[in-house]
């Protein structure tokens, strides 16, 4: 094999914009006073339990998994909206877990979040133009006149036109899809180095969802966006993600290029996520593989492979030995004893 085509080799050259290593978040389970006095052990919700990934500049990484798999917690950790239990997060070479309060405040303009529910993340009493301008005010970017111009440009860019009309409106005067455009505009106005989008299109109708995905795909090109795109629906990763990481119960179980995950998914859980996507062709009876039950409680995750109680391919070894992420070819990494 030509050493130059080796993935490890190219990784050394291209500097990753985001480097996440062995990220962990254990939320302490609340004990009653009595429990503590009785000496009951402190339990932890292991929401994220050793997650590592890189995102290169201009790259979008999809993070996919069922509800409760730890996606939102991962997103909040990499933006340091909550404190890490362990591990490190570097953004553009800076270890953000080491920044003090003031340094972090100043760094915030470079890292932004797009939420799931636009209504909850917009102030109902603030005109949307002012909402989009807000991050510029906070971080003191540009003169008042320049700020206004930047907002107008951004409004046009996310197709809220005519901009002067939309500038004056309040959130309740917009449709769900339009509100999500406002949230995207607000996140991008400071030209951030890195954006986390957490279920950014989940609350929208299918047709509006596609409009927003198109917008994100276009913005990705225009702004050379580096993004973590969190979703429970694998079908929505298709148009914006370059690589995809599949998460289950606090761990990444498979990670690969968009092509690899779509063409040759390896992990049984990845296959399940694909087969769960509704198929509009009534004759194309999909060979459905839907795991039973729900994601188990992360306080006490199953032994061995965490997916084994729901996995139809589980073998004896799966119950005792935890599979490690390993390369199954061309950089596609899978954590499963079948490989």
């Amino acid at each position, binding site marked *: 094999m030509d050493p130059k085509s080796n993935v490890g080799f190219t990784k050394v050259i291209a500097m990753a914009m985001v480097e996440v290593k062995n990220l962990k978040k254990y939320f302490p389970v609340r004990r009653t006073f009595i429990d503590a006095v009785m000496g009951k052990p402190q339990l932890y919700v292991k929401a994220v339990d050793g997650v590592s990934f890189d995102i290169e500049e201009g790259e979008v990484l999809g993070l996919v998994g069922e509800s409760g798999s730890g996606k939102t917690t991962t997103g909040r950790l990499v933006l340091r909206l909550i404190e890490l239990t362990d591990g490190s997060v570097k953004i553009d070479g800076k270890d953000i877990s080491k920044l003090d309060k003031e340094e972090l405040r100043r760094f915030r303009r470079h890292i932004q979040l797009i939420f799931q529910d636009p209504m909850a993340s917009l102030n109902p009493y603030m005109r949307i133009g002012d909402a989009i301008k807000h991050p510029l005010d906070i971080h003191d970017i540009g003169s008042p006149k320049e700020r206004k111009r930047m907002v107008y440009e951004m409004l046009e860019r996310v197709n809220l036109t005519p901009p002067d009309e939309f500038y004056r409106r309040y959130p309740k005067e917009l449709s769900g899809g*339009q509100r999500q455009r406002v949230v995207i505009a607000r996140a991008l106005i400071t030209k951030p180095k890195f954006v986390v989008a957490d279920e950014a299109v989940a609350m929208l*109708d299918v047709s509006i*969802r*596609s409009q927003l995905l198109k917008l994100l795909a276009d913005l990705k090109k225009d702004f050379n966006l580096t993004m973590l795109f969190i979703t429970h629906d694998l079908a929505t990763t298709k148009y914006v993600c370059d690589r995809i990481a599949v998460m289950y119960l606090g761990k990444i179980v498979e990670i690969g290029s968009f092509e690899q995950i779509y063409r040759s998914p390896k992990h049984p859980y990845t296959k399940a*996520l694909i087969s769960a996507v509704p198929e509009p062709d009534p004759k194309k009876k999909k060979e459905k593989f839907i795991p039973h039950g729900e994601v188990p409680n992360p306080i006490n995750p199953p032994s061995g492979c965490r997916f084994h109680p729901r996995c139809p391919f589980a073998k004896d070894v799966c119950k005792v030995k935890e599979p490690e992420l390993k390369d199954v070819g061309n950089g596609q990494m899978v954590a499963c004893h079948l490989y």
Partner: protein
Amino acid sequence: MVLELRDVKIHYKTTRGMVKAVDGVSFGVDKKETVGLVGESGSGKSTLGYGIMKLLPKTAKVGGEILLDGENLADKSEKEMQKIRGAKIAMIFQDPMTSLNPVMKVRDHFVEMIRTHNPEISEEKAEEMASKALEAVGIDPIRMNDYPFQFSGGMRQRVMIALGLVLNPEVVIADEPTTSLDVIVQAQILELLKDLKAKYDMSMILITHDLGVVAEMADKIAVMYAGHLVELAKSEKIYYEPKHPYTKALLESIPNTDINDLELKFIPGSPPDLVDPPKGCKFAPRCPVARKICFEKEPPTVEVDGSKVKCWLYEGDSDGNG
């Protein structure tokens, strides 16, 4: 036909003016048939569902006929409706958290529901029925003693389904039963609904904004846009030979996992404001093939090889009985 809608109109009186949320909708539901009711947010799907249940607010005015086993529900008093709801026709609501009472145990939801209809049923018997219904939806009957918040979103939806089915209704209206759930739980719930429907010989109206969801479930699909029924046809026909430009656009905009299909299609713009809808065809401002007449006159509903379509494109294709 178990349920028949004839030219149903539901208009809300608001301070801004009349909202024609449902405006002349007609279709029937046969025994054991599943009809998918599809459309974007605000197209009038839930309003129609509540209208059939007669659970609309006082500001709503209802016209046309809603026939259940041939009897017009308009003629029923609220007292009679209370008997009908749950027993003959049940609704599974869009948001299970807000439609379950947070301070009532699951068990009490069942007992209340059963005994409202059949006061002669003892509490023990009602509990036994609840047990069976919970088991049928894959919930351990022991959990009857829990409160709604102690369940995950998917489990709560299962409880809602069990509540909807416990009296074995003829028709179930499921309003976006999976919209707030993740894809795996969605697939589980759809599978469950399919099984239960077959087991209990029910008819169903499945409401959703996702054509992908109904395609796996429905025999027939009704597509709504801005209060109008714009296309009605067998599921295969909707998929293989969509007639209405809106149906076509809706189909194309569904994200799928086929890697050979990389072009992202979407419907530009958004549905109209129903207080002040466009004249003529309500889809005209977003329609890629709109013509002059579309902006001037409302299109008639015509039948084109088995599909009912409300669009000027097909006006010459039949005798134009609009």
